[in-house]
């Protein structure tokens, strides 16, 4: 029996990494919000790898934090090991990654939700979304409770029609043994949401006590722990170790002998899996000439002996998995606590969404996370906060928040999803960001805090601290640019010490800093007016000066990019009538209705030649408008 329950501004369906950010954003922006989860024990669960961050994903976490999200703070709270990756490759791709205590991560996030004013946390399965006059009006639970709402954010992860595959066995299930969401799929189709199947997978968890670590390489965290959240200061903590081992010929042979038993290869799984995070059988079959693959052993938490075996995700039968794991050096006697599995789930083609993540045909219905075809906690959280912010802004009658590709990785992520769409689970990568020297993880706050403050997710206090930091950076850069270094004995000695060529005449301090072998810290030895500045300020000053020339190149590229972004496509344009563009492009353009010429240029199937025609068409269109 249905009954009328409470009324909310926003209902969030699913309390994974997307749902949590979405719900917190709405509640913190003052809207009456409810978040539903099939099981409250699964809030912010990490059903796959127990870590947050990494290349480009670390960037996303920093950006979410700068907008006022929670993932960065929560990752700092539950950190087991912290590393800055890629430090030898240039500041744009430095990537922060932490191993997380999975249980603590869940508990802390759950507690944050519970403590949030304006936010109700409910254990319930949503089975239906009511739409009246093409507008979302309510959500209905399995029990029949009907919650009226102005907006719904769908963040169903892998729960929607979830099906788990382990070898020849498969059954309906959500991740980690939780039951899946079933009725919702049919009801989504009924209101006009088309669904498709994607697949992902996870490796086994094994008992730490059964692993022989003496046969593996140890991997330590960094000495200096750099927090994700711009609100947190550097801190010290005893860190856990990770371990590295490798597959071998024996492993590969077992896989080849049993490949016919993989549902991926026998064709039982129809969903498309991620190329970027392949199963071990995929790796062995696709890279046949590779002698070994890396396997990382990572801790799951402080209060558990479970270890995560990264690089060994599989959908082979359990008994084959055991053989495979036992073939690996150090895992000969490992005890598998949870087997590896593949999971298939319903998701949408994300090109039906606006860059606000609202459905183009169902106002008030937003989508975030894996349901949009993405993979990864960080990708999910990024979409969550964008969907949450925009749902809230719309209800408040304010302008939407759309980040473009030159502003944030989040902008790249959302633009890729809604413009290009994806045929496999979408993973963020630094190579997807065209202007990555500008989109560094260190300057995420400089790029986005202002916006976070404006929409009301960043407190005045934090904002003022940020302004202070920004001023410090600017002042210090100006000081170094004005500072004349004379070729004194002390300076020449200093340069010799660091294998840098000595000076013929005076030089600006900023020019010295541009030398590869010189950095900001050691310059302190000859800098007579050096101020005590915080680590993050020094870092920013150094990067901005050292890479000034390259930053300029990227800023010029951005100017060009913005030029096409600013050319807005008229809303009433009928692309089928433009003869010069290809048939495919006409259809795609008509379906997608791009906001700008820039967006149009990124639609797959729309060629540069089509864009050239559109450019001229726009000129003529303008001409006609002006004349008539």
């Amino acid at each position: 029996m249905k009954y009328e329950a409470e009324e909310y501004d926003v209902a969030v369906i699913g309390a994974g990494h997307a749902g949590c950010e979405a719900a917190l954003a709405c509640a913190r922006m003052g809207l009456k919000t409810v978040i539903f989860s099939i099981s409250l024990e699964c809030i912010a669960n990490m059903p796959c790898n127990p870590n947050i961050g990494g290349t480009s994903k670390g960037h996303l976490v920093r950006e979410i934090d700068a907008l006022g999200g929670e993932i960065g703070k929560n990752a700092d709270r539950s950190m087991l090991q912290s590393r800055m990756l890629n430090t030898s490759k240039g500041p744009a791709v430095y990537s922060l990654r932490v191993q997380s205590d999975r249980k603590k991560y869940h508990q802390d996030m759950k507690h944050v939700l519970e403590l949030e004013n304006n936010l109700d946390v409910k254990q319930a399965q949503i089975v239906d979304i009511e739409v009246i006059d093409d507008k979302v009006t309510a959500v209905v639970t399995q029990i029949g409770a009907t919650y009226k709402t102005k907006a719904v954010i769908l963040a169903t992860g892998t729960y929607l029609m979830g099906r788990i595959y382990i070898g020849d066995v498969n059954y309906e299930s959500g991740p980690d043994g939780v039951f899946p969401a079933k009725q919702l799929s049919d009801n989504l189709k009924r209101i006009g949401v088309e669904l498709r199947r994607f697949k992902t997978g996870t490796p086994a968890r094994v008992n730490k006590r059964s692993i022989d670590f003496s046969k593996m390489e140890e991997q330590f965290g960094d000495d200096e722990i750099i927090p994700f959240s711009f609100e947190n200061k550097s801190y010290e903590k005893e860190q856990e170790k990770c371990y590295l081992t490798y597959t071998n010929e024996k492993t590969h042979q077992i896989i080849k002998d049993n490949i016919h038993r993989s549902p991926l290869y026998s064709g039982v799984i129809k969903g498309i899996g991620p190329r970027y995070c392949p199963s071990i059988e995929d790796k062995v079959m696709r890279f046949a000439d590779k002698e070994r693959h890396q396997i990382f052993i990572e801790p799951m938490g402080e209060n558990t002996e479970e270890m995560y075996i990264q690089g060994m995700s599989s959908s082979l039968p359990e008994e084959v998995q055991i053989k495979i794991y036992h073939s690996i050096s150090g895992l000969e006697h490992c005890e598998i606590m949870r087997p590896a599995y593949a999971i298939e789930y319903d998701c949408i083609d994300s090109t039906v969404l606006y860059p606000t993540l609202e459905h183009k045909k169902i106002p008030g219905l937003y989508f975030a996370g894996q349901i949009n075809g993405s993979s990864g906690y960080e990708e999910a959280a990024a979409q969550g906060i964008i969907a949450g912010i925009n749902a809230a802004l719309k209800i408040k009658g304010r302008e939407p928040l759309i980040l473009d590709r030159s502003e944030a990785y989040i902008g790249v992520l959302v633009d890729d999803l809604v413009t290009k769409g994806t045929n496999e689970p979408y993973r963020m990568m630094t190579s997807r960001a065209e202007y990555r020297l500008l989109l560094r993880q260190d300057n995420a706050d400089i790029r986005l805090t202002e916006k976070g403050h404006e929409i009301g997710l960043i407190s005045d206090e934090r904002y003022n601290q940020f302004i202070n930091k920004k001023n410090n950076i600017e002042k210090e850069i100006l000081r170094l640019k004005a500072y004349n270094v004379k070729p004194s004995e002390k300076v020449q000695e200093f340069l010799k010490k660091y294998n840098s060529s000595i000076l013929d005449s005076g030089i600006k301090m900023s020019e010295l800093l541009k030398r590869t072998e010189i950095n900001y810290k050691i310059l302190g030895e000859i800098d007579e007016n050096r101020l005590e500045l915080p680590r993050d300020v020094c870092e920013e000053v150094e990067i901005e000066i050292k890479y000034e020339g390259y930053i300029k190149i990227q800023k010029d590229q951005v100017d060009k990019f913005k030029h096409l972004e600013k050319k807005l496509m008229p809303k009433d344009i009928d692309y089928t009538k433009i003869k010069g563009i290809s048939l495919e492009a006409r259809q795609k353009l008509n379906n997608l209705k791009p906001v700008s010429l820039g967006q149009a240029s990124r639609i797959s199937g729309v060629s540069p030649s089509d864009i050239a025609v559109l450019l001229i068409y726009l000129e003529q269109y303008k001409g006609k408008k002006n004349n008539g």
Partner: protein
Amino acid sequence: MEDTIAAIVTSSSIASVGIIRVSGKKTFEIIEKIFVPINKINKIEQQKMRYGHIVYNKEVIDEVLVSYFISPISFTRENVCEINCHGGTVILNKILDIVLQNGARMAEPGEFSKRAFLNGRIDLTQAEAVIDVINAKTEKSLNQAQKQLNGGLKNKIGEIEAVVLDILSDIEANIDYPEYDVEEVSNNKLISNLDIINNKLIKLEKSFDKGKILKEGINIVIIGKPNVGKSSILNALLGEERAIVTNVKGTTRDTIEEYINIKGIPVKIVDTAGIRESNDIVEKIGIEKSMQAFNIADVILAVFDASKELDEEDRNILCKLDNKKTIILLNKVDLDKKININELNNKDYLYISVKENIGIDELEDRIFNVANLDNVAGDNDVILVNIRHKNIVSKSIKQLTDIYEDINKKTPIDIISIKIMEILNLLGEITGKTVTDEVISKIFSKFCLGK
């Protein structure tokens, strides 16, 4: 785009046949009004030519062939007719006028190409090539432009882009998977790949000089003291009496420019006023102009009178030739030879007599060889003919030079990749992959867009 447009599409020079093209919705309607086919059957067939007369006010204007192209199988993808009529400005203009009176409007320069582009018939590089085709001076340059029209340049750039992408994907794999044992991009591998790009770009850049020769020809300047037969040599090369030839010194008071065609390559020949001291104001101006032409010349033809010994004035001219590609012409060999060959500083020389037509054919060969035209004419490679393309290639080479320097300075690979990416962006401006409205407006400024 609703208008029907028309224009004379053959060059305005005197030729026996000329063509008027009509394109647009009303094309067939207009043709029906003015064209009376011999075969009276009123049927328009795809890509057929019909024979008949242009009739205006019941008066037969010309005997013509009209070819029909039914949309979309035509250059502009619209209905198109081409009227092949007799050449000559008067008759062409008359027929064009009749077409215009019957409902067409005069096409803007390049408007047919613009329509072809807007109707999806050709892409941007091809549109650009069409302009080059229109502006081509000789067959060789037309060939090059057509090669581009067929995508030759695009393929060449494609080869380079493929290597750039290769480098970038290596770098990206390193960055996105920092912990995996992806093969690190070594500087050696990077540099060897960059070298491939560099060599290809430099070759392309160099080809522009050839392209320029194909397009604009080479400059030849004839110098020599007055009355050694400079103008006669020009006329002999042209095969017609164009420069005034007299026995009076200083007859050529201005420089005279003419184009000849040596084995398909345009050659601009400048006949100078002679170089000598003079008090005549008019002649002085002429001499100054001669010096200017001399300075920019690709090849100098220095003319001396073989029937006389070299004098002071001749020697002055000889001195000027040191850094120039020169052919020394010893004219008037039909008279007694009195010139001392040893005084010519070992320069290449050729005995000729314009009067008796001795050595003129060989002169053409010599010009061909000295100007290195063999290289230009024989090469089947893609050649850059367009200055916009050349500038982009030069910019890319500059970018590469920077990259080599950065590698030396041990700049992090990710930072370097930004400049490598920039090369890709630059090259995309040639092929049209990088769409910027500046590029498009630059190209279509020649198409008179926006009217």
